[in-house]
């Protein structure tokens, strides 16, 4: 998939729907992620109960890739356990770094697979991983992540 498809098919839906772009009620974790070189900024909110991510949302501004990648991530992690979310994040990093290429292993990433070719655009890797890094940091700082 070339960059044209990444933009037209995958990101648009997330950018335009903005369905995950809002604060959530009673978040247990709120964390800022910034990408200084790009100026991308997100604030990620999670509500975690008994080791499960019940709800998640984000606000912020930045490029289409950082914003859409975060939105896709939120679709994926909602309702998952912390362990599952960490595994998703690590799989995502593995895909972007070209360390995991086995299609079957990538399947759990669902829509996020569309961002695979970002691995050929080193300048944009930071944008694609911003949300996921913020998620991992958020989980690590949460005292009751189960």
């Amino acid at each position: 998939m070339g960059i044209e498809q990444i933009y037209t098919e995958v990101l648009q839906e997330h950018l335009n729907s903005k369905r995950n772009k809002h604060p959530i009620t009673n978040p247990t974790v709120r964390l800022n992620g910034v990408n200084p070189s790009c100026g991308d900024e997100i604030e990620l909110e999670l509500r975690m109960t008994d080791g499960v991510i019940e709800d998640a949302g984000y606000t912020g501004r930045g490029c289409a890739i950082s914003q859409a990648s975060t939105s896709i991530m939120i679709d994926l992690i909602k309702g998952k356990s912390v362990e599952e979310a960490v595994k998703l994040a690590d799989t995502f990093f593995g895909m972007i770094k070209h360390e995991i290429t086995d299609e079957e292993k990538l399947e759990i990433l669902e829509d996020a697979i569309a961002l695979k070719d970002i691995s050929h655009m080193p300048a944009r890797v930071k944008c694609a991983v911003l949300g996921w890094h913020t998620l991992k940091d958020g989980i690590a700082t949460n005292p009751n992540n189960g």
Partner: protein
Amino acid sequence: MSNPFRKDFPILDSTFNNKPLVYLDNAATSQKPDSVIKAVEDYYRKQNANPYRGLYQLSVAATDAYEEARSITAEFINAKSSKEIIFTRNSTEALNLIAYSYGRSVLKAGDEIVIPISEHHSNILPWQQLVKEKGAVLSYLYLDKNGYLLEEDIENKITERTKIVSIAHVSNVLGTVYPIEKIIQKAHSVGAVVIVDTAQGIPHYPVDVKQWDVDFLVFSGHKMLAPMGIGVLYGKEELLDNMPPFLTGGEMIEYVYEQEATFAPLPNKFEAGTPNVGGAVGLAEAIRYINQVGYDTIQNIEEELRDHALKELSQIPDVVVYGETKAGRDRCGVISFNVEGVHPHDTSSILDADGIAIRAGHHCAQPLMNYMDVAATCRASFYFYNTIEDIDTFIHSLKKVRRWLGYGN
């Protein structure tokens, strides 16, 4: 219309995604003509040795090559003597040298340094550090919405308290050409010293330090056809003579004792360590090339490119251009813009898919970005080897950006 100089730049034949490279990031660094590449290669093939240090013929050849480059540079900016030319790595190093050597030795608590809000970080951070150290004040000249310095700021902020005025010749974000002579007159009338950062100026406009009566001038070779890693600091001899060294070590000394040393005379006093002779040779060749093309020709080509680009950009709805939008004399071919609703990084990636290289981000000018209240911009910047076709390709691609991001047509 074909551009007679394009063929001298081998990199311009590259392709990306099977599309010919359209290089519009000249404000970041220029491409290099064959003659410069060849001159550097020849130096390493035939003349390379450590200059000054060897007593054998090859070292003398390297010293001569280096000193010839210095004379050519002195002549290029009409310096009084080649002693006034200090080679540095780039503009950043030259500005730091001035701040830490000159600035640190003259500045006192309560003194002021004046710079425009549009400066590159390299002309902000050394002053921020210095005023903190000295309890001095860093004061800014602001811009009107077309990117010109506010007259009243020039009048009112350069005062008896001002010790240093440091200003870019041309803005690397807005392309504004600043009224250097006027600033210098005003600063000199209150006894301040003026530094002109012509990193974005000298690639396009001739500079004459005597005519300006400027105290210090800095520029980077790599933005004017020379290799990376060679830059220039010009300073009036009497100023440089009285300044303490910046870096110390080899090459800049006369005698060294256990606890004391005496320093070499100008220019070596400011050139500690083995210099970049290959870079200096490349710079000398770049100067020859620019002189051969001629600044008149460079300006004629660039004005046509700039006017065409501004006109085309003004016709795309949802594109905003920052700074002066009309073709005018006080604007160089550096154009910052944004596509409404689209982050500059996305615009840049989409153009990149068509082989077009532009810059996106804060352009090392965050205070200006804050002042203009934008997070980042795209920037297209031209040089005389660009063509009208380059601009048409760029405009054509730019028109697709919003559609790619799902904004109808």
